[in-house]
């Protein structure tokens, strides 16, 4: 390893990066875009679902109940209907997502403590289902507190009305909030960008013939690899900071543990992903192949890491597979540190797993990278 040569490779990378506008835009654009998408899409889910209300009772009490439901903002009446049958037809045709049926004997059922309202939900969309679940928690029969109609008061609400489609709390937006998303999002973005950037950057040099020139010079494999990794690692840290900052400013995401621990976890994930990108680059023949291989890693990472679905709910085989993915360990670390205020050393098994992953990947990558063309 020669310091001057390594420095030359670093300078070269930074100069090239500075001129690569698209990559620069992605470095900043991807985190912002994802943060906004993940952060706001969840809130949007709860608003303005197309609905129809068939109020057959048409009493002051039932009208009051309808007003309360509308006040939640979850549903928005788009067509009028008179009978539950009409609601079903509208639902089937996809004109509405939610139908609210209030029977003739609404007040009598209320008095008897029976199910008084039926909410029909388009069950083909699980997100609509879960949104409607919130609707069902609007207290029935009693005027809700004036200041907040959306906070359900469990004592006063009566059991859920029977609905033609059962409402399953599958991906409950009330539980998965931006606060829960943002820490994991750091991992998602780092996995997506770091693996791809390094893999593509090296394959691109091979495609353009730069690599043939480089390997005919005294520069060593380690200098080339480290010279590639460091600038992208820096980018990873910039992205991490950007998400943390935006998460704090826009969604008030807390960092209950130490900020240093968050960065340590991020650095571990960045190194793991860069090493994986290097390994991919030694296999891929073209930039397109490098992208495909990246997605091969990225998709299981998103689905199995516990970012989207709870880890414990997955079958054992999927859990074992997930243990092999660096993102799984990072998500445990970052949620532990940011949300539960844990010390990173308390979470040592995941730190160890990431370290082992980095060492293995890096070793494979350097072993596979030859200063030869064959």
């Amino acid at each position, binding site marked *: 390893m020669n310091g*001057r*040569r390594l420095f030359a490779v670093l300078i*070269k990378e930074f100069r090239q990066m500075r001129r690569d506008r698209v990559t620069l835009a992605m470095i900043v654009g991807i985190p912002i875009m994802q943060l906004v998408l993940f952060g706001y899409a969840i809130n949007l889910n709860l608003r303005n679902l197309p609905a129809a209300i068939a109020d057959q009772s048409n009493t002051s009490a039932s009208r009051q109940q309808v007003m309360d439901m509308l006040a939640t903002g979850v549903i928005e009446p788009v067509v009028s209907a008179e009978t539950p049958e009409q609601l079903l037809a509208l639902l089937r045709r996809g004109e509405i997502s939610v139908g609210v049926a209030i029977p003739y004997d609404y007040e009598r059922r209320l008095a008897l403590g029976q199910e008084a309202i039926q909410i029909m939900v388009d069950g083909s969309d699980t997100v609509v289902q879960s949104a409607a679940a919130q609707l069902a928690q609007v207290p029935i029969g009693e005027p809700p507190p004036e200041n907040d109609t959306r906070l359900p008061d469990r004592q006063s609400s009566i059991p859920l009305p029977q609905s033609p489609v059962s409402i399953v709390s599958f991906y409950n937006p009330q539980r998965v909030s931006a606060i829960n998303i943002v820490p994991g999002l750091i991992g998602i973005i780092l996995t997506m960008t770091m693996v791809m950037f390094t893999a593509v950057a090296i394959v691109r040099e091979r495609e353009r*013939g*730069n690599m043939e*020139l480089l390997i*005919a010079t*005294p520069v060593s494999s380690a200098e080339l690899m480290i010279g590639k990794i460091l600038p992208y690692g820096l980018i990873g840290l910039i992205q991490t900071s950007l998400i943390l900052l935006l998460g704090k400013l826009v969604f008030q995401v807390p960092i209950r543990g130490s900020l240093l621990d968050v960065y340590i976890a991020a650095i571990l994930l960045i190194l793991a992903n860069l090493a994986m990108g290097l390994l991919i680059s030694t296999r891929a023949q073209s930039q397109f192949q490098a992208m495909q291989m990246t997605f091969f890693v990225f998709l299981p990472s998103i689905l199995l890491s516990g970012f989207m679905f709870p880890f414990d709910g997955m079958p054992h085989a999927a859990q074992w597979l997930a243990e092999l993915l660096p993102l799984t360990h990072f998500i445990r670390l970052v949620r532990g540190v940011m949300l539960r205020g844990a010390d990173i050393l308390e979470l040592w098994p995941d730190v160890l797993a990431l370290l082992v992953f980095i060492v293995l990947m890096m070793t494979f990558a350097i072993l596979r990278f030859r200063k030869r063309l064959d």
Partner: protein
Amino acid sequence: MGPTIVKNEIAIRARGLSKHFGSLKAVDDVDLTVHRSQVYGFLGPNGSGKSTSIRMLCGLLTPTAGEIEVLGLTIPEQAEALRQHIGYMTQQFSLFADLTVRENLEFLAAVQNLPSKKARLRVDELLEEYHFEGRAGQLAGTMSGGQKQRLALAGAVIHKPELLFLDEPTSAVDPESRRDFWEKLFELTEAGTTILVSTHYMDEAERCHRLAILDRGRLVADGSPAELTGTLDGRTLLVETEMQYRAKQLLVKVPGVISAAQIGNSLRVLVDSDRDCQRHIEAALSAGGVGAEVRPITPSLEDVFVAVTHQQSNAESPQEEPEA
């Protein structure tokens, strides 16, 4: 530091050099000797094994068989020690298109272990020597073919290597730039550099001190251009006629005629050996009703090329039949 370089007269020596890619014999049993301070040419069509040979000689490809000694080092085992003594210019422009002229040279200087102060002087020197004074800040990717070649050459000689490998350096360059480029090469050999250059241009091959003709992986002839053309003395004829097409049809049927190529208003004919072909040709032409004047002409490298590749395919065809 690696092993010391033995100073002797021979820069490259290869014996039985072969490279197979699966069933394809890209380079097949090539023997090669290149003396110092010479321009040694590889002449051959595309796919004749020029690039593969060069890559093996500079240690980028591992030969399937054969021994290589470059500047006294055994290749590929001592390839790493060789790297600082050679310059390599790839066929495709391989400097960084998104770096400026100066940045490219600065990078290469550092990678070739030039100390910073020396590097700065050397970069300035090359910028002037290779006429990049006003263009030091221009991105390499935006330059013309000739400028790119010049820059690539400047990059390849930045550490003043003893040996330069140039893989079809002028394939994408206009004639004037090619001439300038060759001037530079001779300046370098004058200063003691050995140059191995591959080309498919006959006029470039003629400029080399020595050259090897490669055909389908085999070395079919080598020597100085004069030696090579000398072997064809009396075997090249010029047929001047008004009816070139008809004459050509008649000529290829004459025994002993290897090829007849139309050059403007005349035909250039290559014949088998010094049998009295001229008379046969004249007879055949007049019998066919074609008025023509036939006279001997000085052989060119192109004739040599046609002659040796013809021999090669004749020698090969009986062996190949059982395989097919």
